[in-house]
């Protein structure tokens, strides 16, 4: 009885996890923009991995294997969002923007430029002459 219940539960989580995995990987191909594909990647990283490894934990029972799977889940849940953030941040810094992104007119004007210039003026003082020539000319 108990075994059957566990089997049903793990089947359910396997089917759900497989569904999320397939949706996520299909979204990686079908979505039109890097910033949209980020959502698909996060589906695979959270729901797919979580459900499939949860099904494995149910199948393994109360053993060392379950502890190992729990460690893997913990690690993936920490590193997945971190890696996604790193990729998104690198893409943003490189100048890529979402298509149809709207500028916020009400925002205070051009803050990032001001801070950037400040840091440029103050920091290269130590190295200097070439930078100063540039700005002077």
């Amino acid at each position, binding site marked *: 009885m108990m075994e059957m219940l566990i*089997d049903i539960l*793990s*089947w359910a989580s*396997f089917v759900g*996890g*497989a569904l999320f*995995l*397939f949706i*996520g*990987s*299909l979204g*990686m*191909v079908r979505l039109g923009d*890097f910033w949209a*594909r*980020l959502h*698909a*990647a996060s589906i*695979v*990283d959270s729901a*797919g*991995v979580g459900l*499939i*490894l949860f*099904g*494995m934990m149910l*199948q*393994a029972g109360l053993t060392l*294997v379950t502890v*190992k*799977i729990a*460690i*893997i889940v913990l*690690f*993936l849940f920490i*590193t*997945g969002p*971190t*890696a*996604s953030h*790193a*990729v998104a941040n*690198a*893409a943003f*810094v*490189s*100048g*890529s923007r979402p298509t149809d992104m709207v500028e916020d007119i009400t925002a205070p004007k051009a803050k990032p430029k001001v801070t950037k210039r400040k*840091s*440029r003026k103050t*920091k*290269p003082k*130590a*190295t200097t002459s070439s*930078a100063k020539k*540039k700005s002077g000319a």
Partner: protein
Amino acid sequence: MMFAFVTIVILVCMGVVMVRLFSGPTLYDRVLALNVFGTCTVLLIGSMGFLFARPDFLDIALLYALINFVGTIAVLKFFRYRRLGDAPHDAEIIMVQENEEDRTAP
């Protein structure tokens, strides 16, 4: 039966993600696809461990998760600073950014 199903689904997903990995227009698409591919590989190693009744594979899966994360960060760092050693100084970063702006501006 269960694990055969899961393994086949994961293999199919890896194949589908491979399309984006090879055809991604930008570098960041490829890095993202590589990250998803690595996550799928961790799942594949785990489920194959169950399929062949050798749960020791889970250690390898954990190790692969670690390497996958470090590899993603390393690739991003390399393509931002063009080197993998110690991080360059702040002034140098600013110079690099200025150069890139100069290159992209006109």
